């Protein structure tokens, strides 16, 4: 019985936790500029994420080591410090974007600028972690994140051209504006295959005390949870394609995205969008702050767990406290969160190799995984992800220059 409860909770949390400012803004921009054309990027990103998340959970369940533990133990500290530098820097940028997302959602609701919301938002996120346990944070935030299902409602209500959407699932290249198209595709992949999700998921498996008997459940949670999450991203894209593209509106500022659902759901559309972004970004901000703190704690061997009092794992608690306060500073200076989001998505793609290459080694390690090592299917998917990530890493930066 307990497992079924955990199963449903697992699926719900991955649906609620899927969307965040990066996936919403990139999907909305893709819809506003190219209609259904970029649905394939979300599909590809989601499929890769399903495999990566399933593997992260399996590694943690079988070896009782998270990805960070195993990376440090297998590759040694020097290599690990490079991975840490790259991943933590990009994750911090994404955290700033998420805190900005919460601020912007509050801005359109209250009319008070996101700069004034920076400190209160950071304090609330910090309080949730300081007082909450892992269960409260992970499940609570993601349950609130279920409001993002309203995107699907809006998209369906606008009677999308299902044929066109299906056609969009096949990779195509546009006639003109190749650079911006490429940049948007890179950002979508960067938004969906985000390394912090893997680190958070594997640490979560340890917090929830998973063992080998959880492997089938892990597969279902990763599969269904991420698939529904992927559908929500596609819904955002379709909603933007139906509401913004005909009007010729390209999304450069948050205020423009806020009108995404108004044609379909009128007054409800506006407030549902605001609350969807508020809760989705809140869930993501919690996940990223914890992921960064987990990274330091597991990497350097500190005691870590959200279920302990802060004083029992003081360096872990100290790390996430510093991270969140630092995260508020760029917003105080008025840096536009949408710009930060786009840059962080491109940089995520640039640093993907750092996260995925070691991961391929770990998933074939007989000492950690024994007979639960990767089969040829998982290995080939990871190999494809590595191929994509190298291509993204090479082209994402010049694209940022031309297309950004």
């Amino acid at each position, binding site marked *: 019985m307990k497992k079924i409860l955990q199963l449903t909770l697992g699926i719900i949390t991955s649906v609620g936790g899927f969307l965040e400012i990066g996936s919403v803004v990139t999907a909305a921009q893709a819809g506003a500029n190219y209609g259904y054309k970029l649905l394939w990027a979300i599909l590809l990103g989601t499929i890769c994420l399903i495999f990566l998340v399933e593997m992260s959970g399996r590694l943690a369940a079988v070896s009782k080591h998270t990805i960070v533990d195993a990376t440090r133990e*297998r*590759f*040694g500290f020097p290599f690990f410090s490079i991975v840490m530098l790259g991943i933590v820097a990009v994750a911090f940028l994404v955290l700033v974007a998420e805190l900005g997302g919460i601020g912007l959602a509050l801005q359109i609701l209250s009319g008070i600028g996101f700069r004034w919301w920076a400190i209160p938002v950071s304090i609330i996120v910090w309080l949730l972690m300081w007082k909450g346990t892992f269960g409260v944070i992970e499940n609570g935030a993601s349950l609130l994140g279920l409001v993002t299902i309203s995107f699907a409602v809006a998209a369906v209500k606008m009677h999308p051209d299902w044929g066109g959407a299906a056609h969009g699932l096949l990779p195509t290249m546009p006639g003109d504006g190749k650079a911006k198209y490429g940049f948007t595709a890179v950002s979508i992949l960067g938004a969906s295959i985000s390394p912090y999700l893997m680190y958070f998921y594997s640490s979560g498996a340890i917090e929830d005390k998973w063992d080998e008997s959880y492997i089938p459940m892990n597969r279902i949670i990763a599969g269904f949870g991420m698939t529904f999450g992927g559908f929500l991203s596609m819904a955002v894209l379709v909603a933007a394609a139906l509401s913004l593209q005909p009007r010729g509106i390209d999304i450069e500022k948050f205020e423009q995205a806020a009108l995404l659902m108004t044609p379909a759901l009128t007054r409800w559309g506006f407030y549902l969008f605001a609350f969807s972004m508020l809760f989705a970004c809140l869930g993501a901000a919690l996940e990223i702050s914890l992921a960064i703190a987990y990274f330091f704690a597991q990497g350097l061997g500190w005691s870590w767990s959200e279920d302990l009092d802060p004083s029992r794992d003081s360096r872990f608690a100290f790390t996430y406290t510093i991270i969140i306060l630092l995260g508020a500073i760029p917003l105080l200076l008025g840096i536009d969160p949408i710009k930060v989001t786009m840059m962080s998505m491109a940089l995520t793609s640039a640093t993907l190799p750092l996260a995925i290459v070691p991961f*391929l*080694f770990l998933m*074939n*390690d*007989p*000492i950690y995984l024994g007979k639960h*090592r990767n089969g040829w299917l998982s*290995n080939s998917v990871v190999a494809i992800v590595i191929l994509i990530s190298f291509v993204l890493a090479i082209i994402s930066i010049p694209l940022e220059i031309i297309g950004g």
Partner: protein
Amino acid sequence: MKEINAELLIGRKVCDANGEKVGRIEEFRVTNTEKACLVEGYLVGTSALVDRLSAWTLIRPIDKALRGRVFSVYEIPWEQMDLSDPKHPKLRIPKSELRHSK
């Protein structure tokens, strides 16, 4: 008796008695007795690195394809290794006398 940091030896290039490069130190073979942990020998060479990463499941197909030309390993018994200067470990015998263990 001299104390050195073993972890700083990892990755150091080893040259044999007449200065020829043998490879990089990748692993220490040790036996853990009741009283102490004795160093039996040093593993040098790329396949020792693959062992350390326990990545043979991934690398074996590549190794077969290259018919073992790339991944070689030398096991240097502790007596043959001169660690007077930890930055430049040297062999006490020429490379040819070393047993080329797989």
